[in-house]
Each structure stands twice: as structure tokens, then as C-alpha cells.
């Protein structure tokens, strides 16, 4: 985990194209405008990029799910006002326009102020979460010393807004949906946060920039290629599926069961904002897991380090994780509420504590030759024990048929 030094000029420029571009732009402005301009130039490209990625992700999801389900996804809506189909890439534009022109229905007894503010207030943490993720060498909007804590604090404030959204509709089913959504999010916050403790222990800092710097080198230096990192990544991944209300944890917005739960009374653009906030939350969680476990913006091999800018590698890893999210959505049926909660409290929480212990052991057994069997064995052993005992505790018997035999 050595600090990579950029010595050759080619390596330096290819990686720093964006930073130099921004600095040259800022340098063109008069003195008084430089700080606001620098801040704006950090924020606005990120907002635009992730909003575009949101549109692309909806398209990817529909096509990907379609192919998984043996059908073609949308393939008719291409460029607007032309006849080209373009594999359906115009579909997000069409969806956006549809959401915008829908009638905005507010129930008569609803709390008008909260009903209006809830989608907006949900987007604020969603966008704020992108502020601490490092996208490249020196490309991070704010380099906070407690960056990881900031991220989790932002995630926690999302829950109160979801409650607002459900309560403002004055609909008992929306309220129930909101309660269930909050219960799910709180339950999965714990495994989410505890599974990152191992990374914090290994690196010794809460700052995401230093966590990414600690993974520089080749791809076997990334945290995911250690036993605690692999287990931590899997736990973080599952917990982020639950935090983003994605299948198989999408009971709060279960489309076929409770018809959008806490979002039931929101139509048109407000629903689009909720949808966007969910996807942005998903991207932020993925970005964080890339920074924590998958080496951030580093290339897989050290010699590739300067040839492409950091954000390109980040985007590639992000797309892989998004594809994984879509793959899992297409594979697994929805978990029931009690199954969800049992999974979080009875399985994931003990496993994440065991991962922390394993990370500590890894630090003490400095040699990976001992580290892998001991830590890996500990994690696997606890996993097998827990899963077997929880399964047996359910007391399911083999199904017997009375008449058909």
C-alpha cells in the first residue's frame, strides 16, 4: 500500500487533465470571483454527470432486466423528432417529459407544505452525499477529515424525510409504508456502518481520500482482496441494496404489493424527484463502496495508472456495480418485511461484528499467508454456523403431500 508518485510528465497530465482545466478556467476570472467559481466548477459537473448517469441507469436497467427476462427492453424511442431508433436511448427523455407534464395531484387533506417539501428535502442529502467521494487524484469536492462520518450522517437524515413524505399524504397506508421504510433503513444502517469499521481500522483514518490512497498500486492491493475486505464488501453491498430500497429489499416501494408505499400520493414531477433521489442514493452508495473497497479511482494495474484519468476508472467500476445491482434485481424475489428484518438483525449484524474482529486479526498477523486462512476461516465458520442455526431454528419440515404420490 505504497504511495504512488507521479514522476513522468505523461502520467501527470493524463490524470490531471480535469484538475488543470478547472484551474485554468478559474484563473481566467478576476480575483474576487475565484473562490465561488472554483466551488461552482466542483459542484456543477458532478450534478450534471450524475443526473445524466441517472437517465442512463434507467435505460440500462430496463434493457438489462428485459434481456434477463428473455425479452427486448424498450427499443423504439430514439432521437426525438427523427426516425432513428438508437436502441431506445431516447426513452429516458420521453420518461422525463412524461413525468413533467403529468398533473400534480395533492390530496385535499394533505399537509401542503410538507407534501411539497418532502421530495426537495430528499434530494438535498442525495446530492450532498456526492461531496466527499474522491473521483480522481485531487478531484474531490470537499476533502473532509471525517468524510465517512459525513456520508453516514447524510444517509441518516434521509430517513426523517421519508417519514415526512409518508406522513404528509394523510393516508394511513402511506404512513404504514413510511414506517416500514424507516424500519428497514434503520435496521440496515448498522451493518452498513459496522462493515466499514474494518476499513477504518486498516487505514487509520475516516477521510475517504486517505482510504483511497491506501489502496494505490495494483488491484490486489485493493481492500476487496483481503478476507475482511471481501466479506465487508459483500455486507456493505447488501446493506446498500437495502438502503437504496432496491430489489430484493424494495418492500417500501413494492410496485405490486403496496403500490409505492410512502410515495403513493405523489404524482408527476414529485414522483420523478423521489425516483431520482433513490437512484442518486444508489450511486452515492456505490461510489462509497468503490472508494472503500474497490480502490477508488485507481487503475487495476500500476502501469496503467496515468493513461486514463481517474474518473474514467471510477466510472467503469461504478457501471460494473450498477450492472450488479440490476442483475440482482432481475434474479431475486422480494423479501418479506419480517424476513428482511430478521436478516438484518440476526445475520448481518453478527457477521459485520465478526468482520471487524477478523480485520483486527489481520493486522496482528501481518503475513497474508497466515492471515488468509485464519481470518477467512473465522468469517466462513461463523457464516456457516449462523446460517445453519438460523435455518434450523425456523423449524421447517419437508413438505408432505397427502394425495399426490
Amino acid at each position: 500500500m505504497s504511495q504512488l508518485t507521479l514522476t513522468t510528465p505523461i502520467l501527470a497530465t493524463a490524470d490531471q487533465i480535469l484538475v488543470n482545466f478547472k484551474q485554468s478556467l478559474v484563473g481566467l476570472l478576476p480575483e474576487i470571483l475565484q473562490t465561488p467559481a472554483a466551488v461552482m466548477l466542483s459542484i456543477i459537473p458532478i450534478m450534471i454527470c450524475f443526473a445524466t448517469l441517472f437517465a442512463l441507469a434507467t435505460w440500462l436497467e430496463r434493457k438489462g432486466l428485459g434481456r434477463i427476462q428473455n425479452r427486448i427492453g424498450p427499443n423504439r424511442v430514439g432521437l426525438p423528432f427523427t426516425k432513428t431508433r438508437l436502441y431506445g436511448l431516447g426513452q429516458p427523455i420521453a420518461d422525463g417529459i412524461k413525468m413533467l407534464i403529468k398533473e400534480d395531484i395533492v390530496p385535499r387533506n394533505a399537509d401542503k407544505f410538507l407534501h411539497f417539501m418532502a421530495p426537495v428535502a430528499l434530494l438535498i442529502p442525495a446530492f450532498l452525499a456526492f461531496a466527499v467521494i474522491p473521483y480522481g487524484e485531487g478531484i474531490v469536492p470537499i476533502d473532509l477529515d471525517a468524510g465517512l462520518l459525513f456520508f453516514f450522517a447524510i444517509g441518516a437524515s434521509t430517513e426523517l424525510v421519508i417519514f415526512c413524505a409518508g406522513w404528509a399524504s394523510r393516508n394511513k397506508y402511506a404512513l404504514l409504508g413510511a414506517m416500514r421504510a424507516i424500519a428497514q433503513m434503520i435496521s440496515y444502517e448498522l451493518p452498513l456502518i459496522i462493515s466499514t469499521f474494518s476499513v477504518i481500522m486498516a487505514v487509520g483514518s475516516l477521510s475517504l481520500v486517505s482510504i483511497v490512497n491506501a489502496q494505490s498500486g495494483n488491484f490486489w492491493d485493493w481492500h476487496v482482496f483481503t478476507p475482511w475486505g471481501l466479506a465487508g464488501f459483500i455486507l456493505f453491498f447488501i446493506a446498500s441494496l437495502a438502503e437504496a430500497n432496491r430489489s430484493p429489499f424494495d418492500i417500501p416501494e413494492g410496485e405490486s404489493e403496496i403500490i409505492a408505499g410512502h410515495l403513493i400520493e405523489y404524482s408527476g414531477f414529485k414522483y420523478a424527484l423521489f425516483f431520482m433521489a433513490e437512484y442518486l442514493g444508489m450511486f452515492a452508495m456505490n461510489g462509497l463502496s468503490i472508494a472503500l473497497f474497490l480502490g477508488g479511482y485507481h487503475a487495476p494495474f500500476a502501469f496503467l495508472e496515468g493513461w486514463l484519468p481517474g474518473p474514467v476508472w471510477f466510472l467503469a467500476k461504478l457501471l460494473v456495480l450498477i450492472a450488479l445491482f440490476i442483475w440482482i434485481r432481475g434474479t431475486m424475489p422480494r423479501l418479506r418485511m419480517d424476513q428482511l428484518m430478521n436478516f438484518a438483525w440476526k445475520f448481518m449484524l453478527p457477521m459485520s461484528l465478526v468482520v471487524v474482529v477478523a480485520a483486527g486479526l489481520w493486522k496482528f498477523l501481518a503475513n497474508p499467508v497466515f492471515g488468509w486462512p485464519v481470518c477467512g476461516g473465522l468469517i466462513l465458520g461463523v457464516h456457516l454456523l449462523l446460517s445453519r442455526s438460523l435455518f434450523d431454528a425456523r423449524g421447517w419440515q419437508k413438505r408432505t403431500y397427502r394425495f399426490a404420490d
Partner: protein
Amino acid sequence: MLGSGLAKGLKETARNFFGSYVSKERLPTIEYPEEPAVIKENTRQFPILVFDDSDDPMKTLRCVSCQICEKECPPKCIYIVKSKDKKPDFVGKPQLYPAVFDIDLSVCMSCGICAEVCPFEAIFMDNNFEIANTDRFDALLVKKEQLARPNSYLQKISPTLAATIDERRADVVVKAEEKKKADEAKAKAAAEEKAAKAKTEGTPTTPASTPDAGS
């Protein structure tokens, strides 16, 4: 082990995903207006009337306006008016023909009962489903000129059914011909016998008419 079922499921969906690009079996979608829809032989859509000779379709319709299909039709969408005169059918026997044969497009439910009960193999179910039009009134009544199709069309859309029917009709024609020949032969024989009998009865002077085997 917890998670093994998940892995198996993920493998299966990955197979689906990548297989949909290479094999037809994993992507059975037919993009309809561009690619033709797959139609089976015994599809029922809207009825057609079959005629035998393309030179004179209306005079060689197989329908003899027996009105059985009109009576059996559940929503009563068929309207038939018999003709006043008769014309010969495919074996030569004079039959009535329909002066008016209308089917209401908005009422017909494509049950196929009219085709099932027709004793003259005159009405069949088409497999063309693109018959919608934008009129609300007159164009929804399909007349016999629009319903008529040649036998070659029936052979195209239902080959096995048309083959069976053609075979049967050919047999009927052959039998009718044989019967006609047999009738002619019998008539000739009867005529000859009558002439012979007239001849023998014309000479009454033979006294001893012994009952011989010869009359």
C-alpha cells in the same frame, strides 16, 4: 451454505442475459409490425366464403344458403337471403345460392361455429387479423363479395384442412360421375330391354309360348 441458492440464481439469469444475444430460444420476442406474427394453421379470426372457379366467383360460391350457420351463430351476426333461382353445384345438382350474405364485423366473435356446422364446406375461418377499419357504421358490415376467397387461398392458409376437403370433394365428384355412368348404363339397359320386350310382344302368333328363361 447460505448464498449458494443465490449464486445458482445469478448464474441462471446471467445465462439468460448472454443467451438472449445468441440464441433464439432465449429471446422469443417478435417485433410485430416489422416481423410477421407467427400464425398457426387452426387460428380462427373472421369467416370467409370459398368459391371454386376464379372466373366467376359469385356464381361458384360453395354456399347453398341452407342458413344453418345463421341459425347456429351465437351472436347472430350472419344475415342470409336466399336466391329465387337455382344453379348447378360442383357435382351438377341444381342448388340455391345466397343473394345476400352479410356478416357484422363488430358482432362476430370468431367462435368458428359457423365453419364447424356448415355441411357444404362453404365457410371457413380466416387467419388474417388485420381487418380493423376506422368506420363506425357501413364498413363494419362485410358483404359476400368481400367475404369470398378462392380455394387456393384456403389451401394456402390451412393446407391440411384444404387437402382433406379437396380429397373428399374429388371422391364425391368421382362417385357422382360413376353413378351417372351407372345410371346411364342402367337407363340404356332398361331402354334396350323395353325395346326387346316391345319387339317380342309385337308378334302374338307364336302358339306355344313355353315359359323359357329368355324373357
